């Protein structure tokens, strides 16, 4: 009878201490060199999409920000993450809008529900080119229900629409919830890391991967920066 409160206290202490001593890894992703210029996309063959863009959109393979910031880089804990296998109950959504994928890079946990939505007035086909996971290809005409699926193995999967050849996105299926995608300033942040040794991996669809080892000892923020070499074409 008495063990229960003691256990509870211990548990609370454990949770509190792990929260108190949770470290953060943060930093910035940049590039060196000159990235290939992203070409404007001619959506003339799909007027319903073309008219959604006041000015032509460009390809999103390499998206950069000020001060050589590199966007759309998936930064994640590739080893040492304490929550491997905890699948979030909330679904992630991949939207087709204006004949573009939103977001361009979508991160999900293995076995997390993936919802694919077509918000356009045209048919798309969603063709994730999985190699480790199952490769499928489904048509999604306007107004049809979302396609719901999940991937059970970690993999970076290119997604294309065969009807609209310029459409291109990426799925990053990870076995961790500790991830971030670099935004406009190239910044990323991986909070809530209990003390331990971690490998942080940064992945860019065109420039490849980089890793860094980090040790978190307590309630601290470790700076880790990644610099990718730009491909000229």
């Amino acid at each position, binding site marked *: 009878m008495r063990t229960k409160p003691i256990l509870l206290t211990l548990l609370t202490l454990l949770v509190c201490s792990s929260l108190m001593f949770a470290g953060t890894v943060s930093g910035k992703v940049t590039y060196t060199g000159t990235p290939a210029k992203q070409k404007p996309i001619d959506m003339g*063959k799909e007027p319903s999409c073309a008219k959604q863009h006041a000015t032509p959109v460009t390809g999103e393979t390499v998206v950069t920000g000020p001060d050589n910031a590199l966007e759309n880089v998936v930064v994640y804990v590739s080893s040492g993450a304490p929550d491997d296998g905890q699948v979030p109950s909330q679904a992630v959504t991949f939207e087709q809008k204006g004949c573009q994928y939103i977001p361009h890079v979508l991160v999900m946990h293995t076995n997390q529900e993936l919802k694919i939505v077509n918000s356009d*007035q*045209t*048919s798309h*086909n*969603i*063709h994730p*080119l999985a*190699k480790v996971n*199952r*490769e*499928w*290809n*489904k*048509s*999604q*005409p*306007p*107004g*049809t*229900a979302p*396609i719901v699926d999940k991937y059970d193995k970690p993999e970076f999967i290119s997604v294309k629409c*065969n*009807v*609209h*050849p310029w459409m291109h996105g990426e799925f990053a299926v990870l076995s961790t919830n500790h991830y971030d995608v670099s935004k406009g300033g190239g910044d990323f942040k991986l909070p809530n890391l209990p003390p331990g040794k971690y490998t942080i991996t940064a992945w860019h669809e065109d420039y490849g991967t980089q890793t860094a080892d980090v040790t978190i000892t307590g309630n601290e923020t470790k700076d880790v920066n990644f610099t990718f070499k730009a491909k000229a074409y």
Partner: protein
Amino acid sequence: MRVFKSVYGCAGVLSLALAAGVAVWGQDAPDTGPKARLALKATESHIGNLTGHAADGKTDYRRYCAGCHGDYGDANGENAVWLDPKPRDFTIATFKCRSTLTGTLPTDEDLYNSIGRGFTNSNMPIWNTLSPQQRANLVAYIKIFSPRWDKEKAGEPIKIPAETAVTLDSIAHGKALFTKLECWKCHGSHGEGDGPSASTLTDSKDNPIRPYNFAAGKDDSRFKCGNSNQDIYKIFMTGVDGTPMPSFADVIQPNDAWDLVHFLRTLQINRHGKENEVLSAAHGVIPPYVDKNPAPAAPENKAPGSGQ
């Protein structure tokens, strides 16, 4: 000097012979190559009453298949560079002609039928010269190249309802679906494989690929995954995996699918069949389709009849 030379020569010949021996040994030793996971002896296929054994398929595979599909099933046979479309890569276990949903493994029967039927518009011949037992053994053999066969079961074959009557109405509805589902974007409005996206298509290995041209050819032997109306039904419902052709199983109702089949048959303008007879009787004119049971006022952006 001469003695030395001959000694060197001898040594050279010897080492060459040794190397050749090792090479031959090395070639013969692995049954399946580095990527294979399945045991040669235990792998089987089941087609009706036939049971195929991978071990019994090895010799035939080496003799008839490896030239294109490669000793290791990785589509890197010595002829592969000359072929278009490329041979199937058995190490990824993605197959075009299935009775099962997109992303799933085909049934043994699907693979068996593919071997016996061959693939039109490709270099894969009709292997009906091989006995049913030989073909069943080959089905078992190609499974050893991918671990997927160990971990996954074949998909459930899709359910195909009895074919509906071929009528002008059915053809008209099929045409409406062909337009609405945008089949024409690749296949062209007359099914000649010349739609606006046709020239941009690539398969999952980035090789250029052409959409099917319905209008070419005189009979129906040119369909990739079989000649019957049921086979056409299967193609668009299951999709042709590894190619740009998606599955429409989630978006076409089973009976509507038959209407689409009937319309697709009329795109085969030189074919003698019921669909073209019905169309000729109507002087070749497909009337605009009128939905007799329109869906209740659907919100904007909802296509009627999409089921959702």
